[in-house]
C-alpha cells in the first residue's frame, strides 16, 4: 500500500502544480450552482431540499470527469514517463489504483466545496439531512464510477482527445443504459434477458435510487463492482500495451 500512497500523493500534487485543479474546481462549482438556481428553480420550488442540485450532477460529470481522466495514462504514454514508472519496483495495479484514488480524492474535494449550498438550504428551512448525506455519497460513487471508466479509456490510447471522447461516450452509454436511447439499440434482436441485463447496468437508475435517500446495499455493490471491473481492465490494458 506504500506504493499506492506514494503515487497518489504525487498525482494529487501534480493536479495543483498546474492550473488544472483550480480551473476544474472553479468550473464545477460555477456550473453546479448555476444549474441548481437557474435550471433547477431552487427558490421557486419552495422546498427545503437539494434535489435540483443533485439532479444535474450526472450531466456535469459526463463532461468534467473524462476531462480529468483523459490525461491519467495517455499523458504518461505521450511523455514516455510510463517507461520510468513501469520499470520502477511498482506493480501495475498499484500505479492504477494510486492514480485513480488521487483523481477520486480530488473530485471529492471539489464536491465537498459545494458545502455553502448545504448551509443555505439549512438556513432557509429544515431539510432532511439524511437524504442530503446519502445524495452526496451517491454523487461521490457516481463520480467514482465515471473516473474508473475514464481511467480505462485513457489507458487505451496515447492521445488525450481520443481518451476524452471515448470517456464521454462510454460514460454516456452506461449512464443511460436503462433508457430507450440505449435499449432501443438492443430491442428487436437481443433476447429479453440481455435487455434486462443491460438495463440493470444503468448508472442513472442506481444514482437516482440513492439520491432518493435509500442507501441500499445493491446500489453500493453495483458501483463497487463497476469501479473494480474498470480498474481491472485498466491494469490489463496497461500490462498488455505499456510499450506501444
Amino acid at each position: 500500500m506504500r506504493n499506492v500512497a506514494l503515487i497518489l500523493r504525487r498525482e494529487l500534487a501534480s493536479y495543483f502544480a498546474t492550473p488544472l485543479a483550480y480551473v476544474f474546481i472553479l468550473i464545477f462549482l460555477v456550473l453546479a450552482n448555476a444549474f441548481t438556481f437557474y435550471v433547477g428553480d431552487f427558490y421557486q420550488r419552495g422546498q427545503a431540499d437539494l434535489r435540483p442540485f443533485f439532479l444535474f450532477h450526472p450531466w456535469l460529470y459526463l463532461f468534467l470527469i473524462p476531462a480529468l481522466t483523459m490525461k491519467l495514462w495517455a499523458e504518461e504514454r505521450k511523455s514516455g514517463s510510463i517507461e520510468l514508472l513501469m520499470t520502477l519496483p511498482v506493480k501495475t495495479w498499484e500505479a492504477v489504483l494510486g492514480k485513480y484514488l488521487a483523481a477520486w480524492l480530488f473530485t471529492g474535494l471539489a464536491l465537498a466545496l459545494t458545502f455553502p449550498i448545504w448551509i443555505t438550504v439549512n438556513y432557509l428551512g429544515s431539510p432532511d439531512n439524511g437524504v442530503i448525506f446519502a445524495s452526496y455519497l451517491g454523487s461521490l460513487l457516481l463520480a467514482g464510477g465515471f473516473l474508473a471508466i475514464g481511467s480505462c479509456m485513457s489507458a487505451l490510447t496515447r492521445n488525450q482527445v481520443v481518451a476524452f471522447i471515448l470517456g464521454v461516450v462510454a460514460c454516456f452509454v452506461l449512464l443511460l443504459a436503462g433508457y430507450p436511447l440505449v435499449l432501443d439499440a438492443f430491442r428487436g434482436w437481443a433476447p429479453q434477458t440481455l435487455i434486462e441485463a443491460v438495463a440493470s447496468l444503468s448508472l442513472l437508475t442506481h444514482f437516482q435510487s440513492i439520491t432518493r435517500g435509500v442507501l441500499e446495499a445493491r446500489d453500493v455493490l453495483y458501483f463497487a463492482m463497476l469501479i473494480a471491473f474498470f480498474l481491472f481492465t485498466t491494469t490489463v490494458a496497461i500490462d498488455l500495451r505499456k510499450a506501444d
Partner: protein
Amino acid sequence: MIKTEHLCKRYPSVTAVEDVTFEVQPGEVLGFLGPNGAGKTTTMRMLAGFVTPTTGRASICGHDVEREPLAARQCLGYLPEGAPSYGEMRVAAFLEFIAELRRLDGARKRTRLDYVTERLQLSSVLDRPIETLSKGFRRRVGLAQAIIHDPPVLILDEPTDGLDPNQKHEVRTLIDEMAREKIIVISTHILEEVEAVCTRAIIIARGRIVADDTPLQLTSRSRYHNAVSLQLARSDQLQAARAAVAGLAAVASVEVSEREARLTALPRSGAMILQEVAALAASQGLQLKELHLESGRLDEVFRTITA
C-alpha cells in the same frame, strides 16, 4: 550478472531484435553500439522489463525479468531513452518520489539524495520544475534517479546525449568510478565514448549482434590498424614520397590527402611498417612534420560491420 538467452522481439511488420544472447559480469562496462533503429533501445527495454520479449529470456542478478519482475527491478537502475520524467514536478520532489519508491528512508535517503545532487551538479536547479530545464540538466536528473538506490546493475540508454563536453567528461568519470563494483550497460552512438569508458562493445545491426569484443580488439579490425601516417613539411615532396612508400613490399596501399600534405600507408595484413617507413623517409630526405602509428579507426570498423 546480466544474462540474455536468444532474445527476440517481433512486431507485426518488423523484427526489432533477433536472437540476442550475451552475459555481462560485474566490473564490465558494456557499450551497445549500432545505427539508429538497430534494436539497441528495444534490447535495453526488454532487460528493464518494459518490453516483453516475443521469445527468449533475460535475467538480472539471477532474477528472470518476466517471472520475478519486482526483484529484477530492485537490482536495476534504468535511464530510459530520452530521460523521461514528470515535467511539472520540481527536481527535489521528483528525486524524493523515486527514492521513496526505491524504499529509501530517513538518513539513508538524505545521504543518497545529497550524493546524487552533488555528483550530478543539480543543487542549482533543485527547486525548478523539470520541464523548464535544459536538455543537459534533464539528462542528469534522469541519471540521478537511475543511481539513487546504488543498484548493482545500471542500464543507461544514451546517458551523455545532449550534454556539453565538460558534462560528458563528468558523466564518464562517474561511470568509471561506479564501474568497479557494478555492471553497467550503456548505449551510445558516440564512438569515442566506447573507447573512453567501455571494457566491452557489442555492435547491433538490424536486430542482430554482429560484433562482441573489447574496443581495442574492434579497432584492430580496422584496415587502418598499424597504418603509418606521415605529414610532410613541403607539399612538393608529396608525389615522390608517395611513389617511394608505395614501393615498399609490406605496404598494401597508400592514401593521400593533398590539402594536408599527408600520406597514410596501409600495411599488408599483420605487417609492421613503421620502421621501414621511417627509414625510407630518412633516406629519401623527406622533411616530416609528423609521423605516427595508427591504432585503427572505430568509426571505420563500425561502418564496415553495420553497412
